[in-house]
């Protein structure tokens, strides 16, 4: 294992119908499952005035940091070595629209000042940093359909540049009347949950005796699915063992038909900025499940020809710890 490799060393989950990482591979839809209750998971303290996206992200963050061995009663590493990247497209639309309504109806004297932090789209990333004392780079990615994979990529880029030793990467979206109204969607189609990954430099993981469950590979953001496949799976390259496909896209004839395709939005609902992070977490579970192809790479992809671009990322199973 190269010291410059970037490993996934923890997965955290706050999703309806999912108790642990293995459930990310469930086949049936999570529609109708009870929604995530942050107060039950974290206790009520510190959740007041936090928007739903921040609360869900805090749940996934705690779970992910614990899974990676970074959080017991307190953080087990210096806070300055841990960065945060959060992806969400719809996260604070509830606050923005509610406040705009309030100003029209009541004027500024009628709105609650407690909404102020939530009017800034980066509130989720900074809320996670504040709660767990993570003082490395803190970045909010709001980049459309590919946003979750882009977030993983920028965490990896910052690790390669030496800006931190590890990043907590979170994908989160919420389902509420404002978001449904803007998207023109009925209830029950949108994900209301969060997923977290800890990605870490291999040397930093080794130094604290942590094992990785996957290795991040090549990433690309291209104009379409075929271009993205061309970049990541060249004709002479090894075919991946599984493909987590973009929402609603199972075709992709550039890969052999026997490469299994999984559309996580069929199980978890439309996941927008959370999708890429969810896909990477599911790929980690796929490696862990140890099926006949689990020694091969996993390909995850978000965005289609309907979006501004398509992003893809390859992951490999982690080798024996160095």
């Amino acid at each position, binding site marked *: 294992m190269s*010291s*410059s490799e970037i490993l996934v060393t923890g997965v955290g989950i706050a999703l309806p119908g999912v108790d642990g990482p293995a459930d990310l591979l469930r086949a049936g839809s999570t529609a109708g499952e009870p929604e995530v209750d942050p107060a039950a998971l974290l206790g009520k303290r510190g959740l007041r005035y936090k928007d739903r996206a921040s609360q869900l992200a805090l749940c996934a963050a705690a779970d992910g940091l614990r899974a990676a061995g970074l959080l017991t009663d307190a953080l087990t590493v210096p*806070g300055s070595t841990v960065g*945060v990247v959060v992806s969400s*497209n719809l996260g604070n*639309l509830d*606050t*923005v*629209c509610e*406040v*705009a309504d*309030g*100003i*029209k109806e009541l*004027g*500024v*004297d009628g*709105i609650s*000042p407690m*909404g*102020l*932090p939530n*009017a*800034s*789209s*980066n*509130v989720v*990333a*900074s809320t996670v*940093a*504040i709660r767990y*004392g*993570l*003082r*490395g*780079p*803190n*970045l*909010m*990615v*709001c*980049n*459309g359909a590919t*946003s979750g994979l882009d977030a993983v990529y*920028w965490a*990896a*880029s910052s690790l*390669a*540049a*030496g*800006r931190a030793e590890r990043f907590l990467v979170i994908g989160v979206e919420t389902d509420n009347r404002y978001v449904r*109204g*803007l998207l023109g969607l009925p209830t029950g189609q949108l994900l209301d949950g969060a997923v977290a990954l800890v990605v870490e430099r291999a040397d930093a993981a080794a130094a604290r005796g942590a094992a990785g469950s996957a290795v991040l*590979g090549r*990433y690309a*953001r*291209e*104009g379409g699915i075929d271009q993205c496949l061309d970049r990541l799976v060249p004709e002479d390259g090894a075919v991946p063992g599984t493909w987590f496909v973009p929402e609603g896209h199972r075709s992709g004839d550039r890969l052999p038909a026997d490469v299994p395709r999984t559309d996580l939005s069929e199980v978890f609902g439309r996941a927008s900025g959370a999708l890429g992070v969810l896909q990477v977490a599911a790929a980690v579970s796929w490696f862990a499940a140890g099926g006949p192809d689990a020694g091969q790479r996993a390909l995850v992809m978000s965005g289609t020809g309907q979006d*501004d*671009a398509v992003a893809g990322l390859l992951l490999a199973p982690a080798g024996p710890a160095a």
Partner: protein
Amino acid sequence: MTAPLLEQPGTQPQAVVGLGAVNSVGGSVDEVFDSLCAGRTGRAELRGFDRSRFRAQHAYEIDDRPDGGGDVTGRATRWLIRAVEEAARDAGLGDDLSEVPILIGTGLRELRSAELGWRDGAAFDVSELHFGTALRERFGAVRTYTFSNACSASLYALAMGSDLLAAQGAETVIVAGVDTLTESMYGLLDRVHMQPPDQVRPFDKDRKGVLMGDGAAAIVLRRADGRLGETVRGLLRSVYVNCDGFHVTAPDAEGVAQALLGAHRLAGVKSEDIDLVMLHGTGTLLNDEAEALAIGQVFGPHAGNPLMTAVKSMTGHTSGGSGLLGLIVALKSLESGRVPPTVGLREPVEEAAGFRFVRGAHAEAGLRLAQVDAFGFGGVNAVAVVERAGQ
């Protein structure tokens, strides 16, 4: 992503080879810089909102709405495209940016359009909340990234773009910043001010708070490999980013000080080498105090050496785009020797009493190194060090 690990970010200087800007004081970099040096502000009565709903009545808006009142969608996106066009033209890039990563830092994305769509029935598609959709249409760009990092967003984007160049992930990157007023942010700021401000007065004892401004800024960045025929507008020596991990809106002087030290360390400079500080200077009670304390702590006996100025006194707080605007003004100041004044600063706060603010008229000085500050809600800090070209 498979690039070798760097010893530390920012160890190789990078060249800024194109500039673009638009805001309430000008429609191009030269117009903006000349206005700022002349002390002209973009302050005016609120144009796009129903003024009867607010206590504060002023802002620093771009006056481009159609006649007849009301507001329209997509304004931030249009300014972003103008700023990128100007920077790309300045760098000699064509209209095809399909191979050039474009990184955009913004506080509020197209949330103003979302407000108009949700509340007032304007046509708005959620795919236009981030800027990739429009940048692909205009420039064929597909490696586009919208980072929504509050008021340090464009310098955070610069850090990411700088890392991409350093890791050989691209030959050229465009880094941009953009923001417009949202009614939700303007209104919530208005709600929390003790008295409504009518002017942004950074570091003044009588400052009342912040007022927002419209604007976009863009630069083209390349590795400084001395290629021929290219006009280098300045060198990027470092960008350091961190997070206070302290409070969702209030800054922490200790986290800010760590960011200043980090930027100096990565650039290989000491505080006494800095000739000019482009202050974040928002005119809020908390920011200006924390920023002054942090500078006092890091610069120590040298805190009175560099010239300092806060251009938000003329542009208002252009939010996520403000850091990159500060960087562009810094490069123009290093190149021309002219430094814009901080308008409206009469008596500095105690923590900044020893600072060499540019006041009244613009200053003229020979300068080499500038520090650019940007701090945002949630304690997201970003500090850059830039150097005059042609050293």
